[in-house]
């Protein structure tokens, strides 16, 4: 009798552990209130949308830092790679990339970018493979980021170390651009001369 109960309890606990692990693994796929779902109604695809500053009454997402002006670009790479341009604000600017499941896979800040404007190309691994190699060499200073998922979120954040600098930070994130690049015609000899780029000021 005791053995039977012990066996039942052991079996129940074992099954409970399996239920627990399954619930944890399935949860991200079934969550209806994750960041991506919260942003979907307010952020059209492949456009920069400035997020309202969080207030006690209303915030787009929980745990937003009120010292930052933020904007998002909810991207979809199925139409081609994306070009992102972010002017840096006076204090601190960062660009973070999230997958469809809100997992951060890349982030860069103004100092790491080392220039006044953070410029980069976002593409899927398949699209990156299609970029002609010589193209990649000529554009050596163009940063390419590979997205693990075809959709996701780019979060652009500019810090206002003092409340008075919030306007400048908001202006910086609002001036960001995120747009689909038209896929370039493949395999054309690149003979056109590229205009010399002015040397960008280093920080």
């Amino acid at each position, binding site marked *: 009798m005791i053995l*039977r109960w012990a066996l*039942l*309890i052991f*079996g*129940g*606990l074992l*099954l*409970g*552990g*399996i*239920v*627990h*692990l*399954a*619930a*944890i*693994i399935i*949860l*991200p796929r079934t*969550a209806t*209130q*994750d*960041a991506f*779902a*919260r942003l979907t109604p307010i952020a059209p695809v492949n456009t920069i949308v400035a997020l309202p500053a*969080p*207030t*006690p*009454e209303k*915030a787009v*997402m*929980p*745990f*937003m*830092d*009120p*010292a930052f002006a933020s904007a998002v670009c909810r991207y979809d790479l199925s139409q081609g790679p994306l070009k992102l341009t972010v002017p840096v604000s006076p*204090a*601190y600017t*960062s660009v*973070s*990339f*999230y*997958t469809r*499941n*809100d*997992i*951060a*896979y*890349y*982030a*860069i*800040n103004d*100092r790491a970018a080392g220039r006044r404007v953070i410029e980069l190309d976002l593409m899927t691994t398949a699209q990156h493979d299609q970029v002609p190699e010589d193209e990649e060499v000529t554009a050596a200073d163009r940063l390419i980021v590979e997205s693990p998922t075809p959709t996701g*979120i780019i*979060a652009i954040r500019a*810090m*206002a*170390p*003092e409340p008075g600098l919030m306007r400048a930070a908001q202006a910086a994130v609002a001036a960001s651009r995120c747009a689909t690049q038209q896929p370039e015609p493949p395999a054309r000899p690149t003979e056109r001369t590229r205009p010399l780029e002015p040397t960008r000021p280093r920080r």
Partner: protein
Amino acid sequence: MRLLFGTLFGLALAAVVGLGLTYYALTRGAAFGGLSIESWTAWPKSGTTDADPYARASIARSGRLPTAMGDGVSFTLTSDDDGKSLDGRCEVVVSGVTPAARFWTVTLYNRDGGLVANSTNRYGFTSQEVVRHADGSFEIVVAPRANPGNWLPTGGVERYELILRLYDTAVGVSTKAGREVPMPDVTTRSCP
């Protein structure tokens, strides 16, 4: 009959244990690879693609975008140095210095991650706003009533948490608690 009863008992136990554990893990923010320094805890790996299933579930459930590695690292504080839960009716002093970072912010949230309403519209401090002592250390008083100096109002809520975010910092996945990463001390000074 006994077999049926036994099976039902086993299944019910499984459901309770399984879902109970899941709820507990997600509300307590359990994830592997937590970096605990004094009373502060960060999960640097949650800001990378190495995030474990617990971190992923917790991120999806809360609806937040985690601080990405390369941007910064977030330290959460839910209790003072004596292990007492942070209480918005008490006067809590956060004092000392932070690890090296280009900027940091400390923000007060309720347990759902929302800002707490208060008369001064102050929700946190940045490294530039905070008033420091001559030696560079600072003291923030987290209290329901106005205090001289760096006063962070709690709005009188019962439970809150503080998040210290270090931006552009070397603190990360490979950091070990030690002298290079001094975190502010947290003490409850007085409680009504």
